[in-house]
């Protein structure tokens, strides 16, 4: 019996490690934006980020993850769980929409870089309710124009 269990465990560890490797599990510990489209769902978000005004100053994690070590890994774990569950079972709302908690992280990151310009705009606001959300108006900052492959191409 112990041998059977040992072999079974060995197979599990082997298949498990291979799956982890095949699914590019280690890439999720990196900062590379390409890792965020591993599971295909985020391909349009990745493509639109490439065409946005922020693509050479901010990667996915710069806007979408907290910048303290503990907070960052908690958010990675939480989002990682939701995303892998959502994509494996295909049971999420489409189009994919940001959750309230992540919208808060995003707002903090806008202010983190742009505080000098915005402190008077956001001063006194306490989340969520009365806060001025930057992306409410600056929708195209991170992911470009929503329509027409970067907006309309006009003659002038």
């Amino acid at each position, binding site marked *: *019996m*112990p041998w*059977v*269990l040992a072999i*079974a*465990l060995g*197979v*599990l560890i082997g*298949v*498990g490690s*291979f*799956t982890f490797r*095949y*699914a590019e599990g280690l890439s999720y510990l990196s900062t590379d934006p390409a890792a965020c489209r591993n*599971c*295909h*769902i985020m*391909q*349009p978000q990745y493509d639109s980020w490439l065409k946005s005004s922020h693509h050479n100053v901010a990667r996915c994690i710069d806007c979408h993850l907290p910048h303290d070590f503990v907070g960052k890994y908690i958010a990675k774990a939480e989002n990682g769980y939701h995303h892998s569950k959502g*994509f*494996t079972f*295909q049971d999420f*709302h*489409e*189009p994919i*929409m940001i959750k309230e908690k992540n919208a808060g992280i995003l707002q903090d990151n806008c202010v983190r870089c742009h505080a000098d310009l915005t402190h008077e705009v956001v001063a006194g606001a306490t989340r969520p309710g009365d806060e001025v959300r930057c992306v409410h108006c600056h929708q195209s900052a991170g992911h470009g*124009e*929503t*329509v*027409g*492959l970067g*907006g*309309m*191409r*006009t*003659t002038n």
Partner: protein
Amino acid sequence: MITRNRGFSTVAWLAAIAVVAVATALVTALLMNIGERKQEATRPFVRLVEVTEDSTDPALWGVNWPKQFDGYLLTAEATRTRFGGHGGSEALPQEKIDRDPWLKRMFLGYAFSIDYRDRRGHAYMLQDQENTERLTKPQSGSCLHCHASIMPLYRQLGDGDAMKGFEASYKYSYQELNAKLHDSGHAYPVSCVDCHSPETMELRVTRPGFINGIRALANSGAPVPHLPSIERWRAGNKAEPYDPNRDASRTEMRSYVCGQCHVEYYCAAKMPLTFPWGKGLRAQDLEAFWNETKFEDGSRFMDYRHAESGAPILKAQHPEFELWSQGIHARSGVACADCHMPYMRDGATKVSDHWVRSPLLNINRACQTCHHMSESEIAARVDQIQQRNFELLQNGGTALMALLDAVQAAKQAGATDEQLAAALELQRAAQWRLDFIAAENSMGFHAPQEAAKVLGEAADLARQGQVAALNWNAAQ
């Protein structure tokens, strides 16, 4: 005495093995799932059969592009929104003219007063046309321009030149051309080949009516800020005529392919099928174009003479492309396909939904990509726009009926056609505007302000006509 196996019972060992086995099975299932998704992402389709310009059977294309074909097949499903569509029985949809009685009186003298129903999906377009009671009146072969996958037949009629074949087609009766279509083996409703190049799958337009119409629009000076390729072509040297397949952007093509048919046109037997775009795309521009048009025999252009009043009437078809052109969505670069065939995810692939239908049945994909609010909020906003348009439309219908009543009363009192000429011209202008919005399939949503303007003019012109008819003998 019971011997113990180092503290574990056989049952415990078996249970441990079973747990590990189940875990391994789950991990393997996950591995397979990931593998399948990776395959999908690298190979969105496999070209198993060859398709050519003559492959009008959509099922053949469906072998290569099953995801798009599955969506196309769903256009046979009955769908309904508050103001449009088909209730869902196997029978033909409800008579539009029974619901709005003023429509029937408005169309007296035209085949639409015999049979005019709510629309069904693309899959039914040929069958519904072959069955309509309007065919008891003579109908032209031009109708097949949009109700069949007609291009091979046009090439056949024109000895290889589709434009020539198209130009000959209006002389055939509907029954004659329909018989030829069935003989040619291409009796299918709109098919893949009508919008896609069989070699590259690129979007392209094929319909001669559209190619002529958009060229006339480009040659005119009418502002078209929502069609930047036309403005670019106008700014160039114009050495070659405007060619949508060469000049238009992909975004524009995502509207042009729909504009091949969802437009206003003349399609009866007195001249070739014509899209009236030579002066612009607004209702008033189309009216001005028709008012300057003469039939080949030199007589004044009209679709029919009103059976009750005798007015020379313009019948609006379904000017969706034209009304969309006046709206905020067109102005913002949103194409027909963005809302009516929105991108959807299928596994790891992105496909455009070929179940062409009302965006109200697909609000999340059609609207929420841009409008970040709840589905119920979006539905409520659309409903508000459509309800207001509906009320304006009924208001216009009432005004037009009052005009017709006044004309009837004047005739009974002995008014001549000359004495009623002003009233009848006003009927033509009012009815054109009313019908333009009534026949258009968005209940005003494609351009709410433009629709309200057109309906406001309709009611005003109808009341002016009523006054003119009431005062028919004021001069004497």
